[in-house]
């Protein structure tokens, strides 16, 4: 190990720096050719982006979601695929895959009563399914829609009630 470190000469580090510069220039040139410009800010957070466009905050804090769930005061919609949903989901949540909303709408609509808040979730910080579903519901006239960001992972970590084939139901 030590002999490897001592054998690292200036030339090696210089070579490495050259490779970094070449890669950066390559990335810049190819990016310019393909996309025409360099984006200053990326719509990386889909939820933030959607909230901005709609002019309302879609995100619901985890504590608030847990609270609503405890009192049964909200409808939870799982926007992930049926496979993920069956493995485990928030107790009582309905599976409404964002891309199949039209197909399952006749089953979903009767469950969305009155002004009861709707909470959508999926999994992962960058997952946009829950946001897509929320926006689709808002388009259909539902105002009280919120998104639980990175919902499944955070719900599990917070020991929220879950059910499914691969989780310990509480």
């Amino acid at each position, binding site marked *: 190990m030590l*002999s*490897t470190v001592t*054998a*690292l*000469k200036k*030339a*090696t*580090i*210089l*070579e*490495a*720096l*050259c*490779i*970094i510069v*070449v*890669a*950066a220039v*390559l*990335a810049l040139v*190819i*990016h310019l050719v393909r996309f025409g410009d360099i*984006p200053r*800010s*990326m719509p*990386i*957070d889909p939820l933030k982006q959607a909230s901005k466009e709609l002019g309302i905050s879609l995100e619901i804090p985890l504590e608030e979601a847990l609270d609503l769930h405890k009192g049964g005061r909200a409808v939870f919609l799982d926007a*992930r695929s049926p496979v*993920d949903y069956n493995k485990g989901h928030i107790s009582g949540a309905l599976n409404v895959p964002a891309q199949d909303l039209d197909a399952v709408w006749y089953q979903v609509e009767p469950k969305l009563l009155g002004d009861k808040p709707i909470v959508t979730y*999926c*999994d*992962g*910080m*960058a*997952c946009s399914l829950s946001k897509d579903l929320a926006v689709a519901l808002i388009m259909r006239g539902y105002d009280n829609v919120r998104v639980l960001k990175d919902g*499944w*992972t955070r719900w599990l*970590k917070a020991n929220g009630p879950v059910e499914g084939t691969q989780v310990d139901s509480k």
Partner: protein
Amino acid sequence: MALLKEHKWTPNNWSLKDKKIALVLRGALGVLFLYASVSKALDPFEFSKIVYNYQILPEPLIYPVAAVLPYLEATIGLCLILGIAKRGAALLAFLSMVVFSLALMVNLFRGINVDCGCFDVEVRSVSQARMYWYVLRDFTILFWAFIVLRQSVLRE
């Protein structure tokens, strides 16, 4: 493992077989890096979501890193395959594996399951077991990169 023994490291007592093994190890590592770069380079926007998921970098840095990293991997890969600036390429291959492994382990310890995004850019939800597999895989490549680095710098 003969390649790890110290006495093997003066070029004089390198047999043709040793040279061949060293070449294959370096070339194959290059192919791996090149392969890993393709899907990321094709879709930097998707890849930026993966980088975002790791929850390590501040937001302004996410896209620049996602845009440059694939080309860095590709350049490292090509250099390793062609034997151009191979010491520098081997050093970078090793260092990048250190960074990748650390990024995964930080999230493993934080209890965040992130999709590795190592060889493709599809964002999936992953299990804890899969995280361990990612780390194990990264450590294997890290060790491999270390051997290649050792070969490259000691064989001056």
